[in-house]
């Protein structure tokens, strides 16, 4: 099992995950929270895609003349689904933000707390 230096990529993605989490909790603007959520989800996708990587590997396309070790196609198929899930949640969240602004006139979480 490689130490933290061997998995520096994973460590970077965990840091990105936590930056996203920080933005969601600390920032008040709802759109900023949503960007933080996107950063967090993209970090998880990057982690899974990187786990499918192989040294000196090429894209998993086995056409004529393609040689060498191939990256594992399974994580790529998973993350294609993950990215579509992320954009669906983002589209819905943005519509809710537009509806919140239409109903309450503000998209700052602390002001909304009073409006309830």
């Amino acid at each position, binding site marked *: 099992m490689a130490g933290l230096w061997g998995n520096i990529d994973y460590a970077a993605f965990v840091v990105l995950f936590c930056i996203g989490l920080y933005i969601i909790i600390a920032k008040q603007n709802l759109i900023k929270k949503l960007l933080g959520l996107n950063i*967090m989800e993209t970090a998880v996708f990057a982690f899974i895609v990187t786990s499918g990587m192989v040294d000196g590997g090429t894209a998993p396309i086995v056409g004529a003349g393609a040689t060498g070790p191939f990256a594992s196609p399974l994580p790529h198929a998973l993350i294609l689904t993950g990215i579509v899930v992320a954009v669906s949640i983002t589209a819905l969240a943005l519509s809710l933000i537009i509806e919140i602004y239409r109903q309450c006139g503000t998209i700052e979480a602390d002001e909304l707390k009073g409006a309830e």
Partner: protein
Amino acid sequence: MVHWLPLAAFVPLVAGALTPALAHGRPGLARGWALAVTAFCIFATAALTRRVALEGPFSYAMGGWAAPWGIELRFDEFSAAALFICVIMLLVLCFSGPYVRRAVPAARITWYYSLLLVNLGGMIGFVVTADLFNLFVFMELVAVSGYALVAVGGGRTAALAAFKYLMAGAVSSALILFCIGVLYALTGSLNMADVALRLATVESRAPVLLALAGMTAGFLVKAGLFPVHVWLPDAHAIAPTPINAVSSALLVKLGIIGLLRIFPLFGAAGVVSLAPLYEALAWLGAISILAGAFFALFQQDIKLMLAYSTISNIGYIVLGLGLAGELAVTGASIHVLNHALIKAALFLAAGAMIHQSGYRTLHDLRGIGRVMPWTTLALLVGALSIVGLPPTAGFLGKWYIALGALEAGRPGFAVAVLGGALLIFIYFARMLNAFYFRAPSHEEMLAVREAPASMLGPVLLLAALCVLGGLFGRWPVLLIAPGVSRLVGGG
């Protein structure tokens, strides 16, 4: 027919996608279409439940590919919850006919039924799949349609409640996906049975521990347990009534079923033992019972009160799982099913009252027993069963959990079980006293008429099911006994 299993999840999803296209010119068609598809699902899941009762768990390889390579759907005893999901969804669809015409803007009604069908297909898919990433995909389908259904009513704070629910759900989903990624990196496969097999030979302890803790935390957020319940009360109280019934009775149960799916994964893992996790779950469950019931006492709005009592009942189920004894886990699994019936009956009855009278708080609804006798009777039966009095369905689950607590030598938890029931009893006694014996505080209350037939029918049927669930409680216990022994034995 062996193909009921994939079709039970496949048909409602495709039907949900076709609803807007079919019902474009004819708005009335959407509800009829949804009822027909749900009736098909009831027929399919009933056939599957009968088969699992006779032959035990069975699998279906999607696309003809064997387990670790393709996606495997596996219908075991706990998947029988799909039958309860379909029955409650049919009654909710029947209830939402007249209710939705007034509570939801006209342009959104077709999309409302489309989202409900997608929600149904996602829930059935969630309880039958045996593939980790497929579990995540169906969970997201249920989640996205659930967030939108909370905000479809369009009230002043509906969008804000839905946004908070979305944020809590999306963060927990990202954490669950991260843990699925860790498990995939460790074992190279996504099939649950295969992962459990290969986890036994993993020697690095930290990733397995994180995967276990992360997925448990993620599913507990989705189940709305006490410390992470903040999103639940608003999301469950502000939405239209049929959606309250669906989310409080069914959506939170998916978090529990998710736990039941991942515990066997780590059962065989040598590097991590589940005992400390069960201990933590038992304590969290007990705290959640008392906290949920305690907060419910201070609510004036009856829908908010029912939402907090959901948190308390989720606490019962998690306490049952935490005790990890044969009796306790049987009680928890039974309570998952019975509480779905009870909470659906309570929310639909309360919703019918609010729909007819326009009042929401206990003070304003005084004397409604005289003008809406049948709905209030159904609420009375629901109240008796949620408190857990013997003839009703609520008694079974709590009785088994209390016995399990005593059997495990933890009388403190048995006291928590009874204490929670007592707190809820106090509130319901006050509520029923206000409905039956207090003079109405508004003159308009006397002019209120009984709910229309298509709303009253489901409410009364659910109340009857609550009583039948109590009288014929032996059958569900016998049905899930092998599943529980496999879980407790392997756990």
